[in-house]
């Protein structure tokens, strides 16, 4: 074996070795593998239903000369109150039974939820009145009533809705109506 052949062989081996080294580095530098746990939970869809034939009805009052309010408690059997010089009409052909609106929320048992309702505008011709809705808990701010609560252990919650009807001093007689929208969301 002459020196030339030895050198050629060494160069070849070195080249092969270099190529082999290069091949090993690529295989470990161009891909990587890691593992992480994965989980999923399927829960009941959330629904809100208005109980049929229930309305938020403030009943009949007589005209007043000062700013007044009519209040209904958020209960299955509501209690009506008032401020100002209006008179609550409780009998006769002009009267109608006051009532709180009734809703039912259903979904995942014991799930935390948030219930919201925006202020309602009642209209009679060109005249308008404002209603601030009220739940059994929560508070009204910036035109929206918010109530943070939870479904019971069967996944249900009865939601009566009362509120405050605001009557200005220059109130106008008439039959007023509007629509209350109540939204429930999983927390």
């Amino acid at each position, binding site marked *: 074996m002459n020196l030339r052949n030895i050198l050629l062989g060494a160069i070849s081996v070195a080249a092969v070795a270099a190529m082999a080294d290069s091949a090993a580095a690529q295989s470990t530098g161009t891909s990587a593998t890691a593992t992480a746990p994965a989980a999923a939970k399927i829960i009941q*869809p*959330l*629904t*809100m*239903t*208005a109980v049929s034939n*229930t*309305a*938020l*009805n*403030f*009943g*009949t*009052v*007589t*005209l007043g000369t000062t700013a007044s309010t*009519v209040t209904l408690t958020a209960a299955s059997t509501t209690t009506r109150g008032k401020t100002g010089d*209006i*008179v609550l*009409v409780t009998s*006769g*052909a*002009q009267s*109608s039974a006051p009532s709180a*609106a*009734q*809703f039912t*929320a259903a979904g995942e048992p014991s799930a935390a939820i948030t219930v919201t309702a925006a202020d*309602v505008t*009642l209209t009679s011709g060109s005249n308008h*009145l404002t*209603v601030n809705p009220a739940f059994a808990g929560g508070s009204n701010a910036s035109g929206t009533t918010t109530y943070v609560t939870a479904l019971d252990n069967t996944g249900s919650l009865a939601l009566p*809705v009362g509120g405050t*009807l605001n*009557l200005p001093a220059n*109130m*106008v*007689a*008439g*039959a*007023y*109506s*509007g*629509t*209350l*929208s*109540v*939204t*429930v*969301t*999983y927390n």
Partner: protein
Amino acid sequence: MRITKAALSICVGAAALAFCAQAYASSKADAPVAARIIERAGIDIVSPLLLPAVSTATVATAGTSGIATGTSARAVSSGVGNATLTIHGQSGDAVSMAVPETFRVVRDGGTEALTVKTNTSADGGALMNGDTMSVNVGGNVNLASGDGLVPGPYNGLLVVVVQYN
């Protein structure tokens, strides 16, 4: 970089799934709201019931069995009139009005009393034809009901009740 149809389908499907998930995490329902304001039922007295002043005199009459005395009376004042009342209520609604058949007037500073019998243009029930309605109440005095007809002003209170039916 080219996006394959399969990859695009996966993206759209994922977005739809996210939207559906949000819909089932929130729900809304509506209910009607109602309130009614009516005119206050009330009564305004436009003018009171004014009965005429009466002058009385003892009259002696000779009869076959002797002289009998009695009392004659005549009205001597003007400016009398029925009570005029304005009823306030809700147009189209029925109201009922209760006016007493009689009421008593008593002499100022005394106890002598006279009975006034009333008459009115709208006793019982009526239908409001507008927000207001005018009603008259008159009366007449039976002087024979008086106790000795002591001179003096007599005053009393006529109470009229109006209410929605």
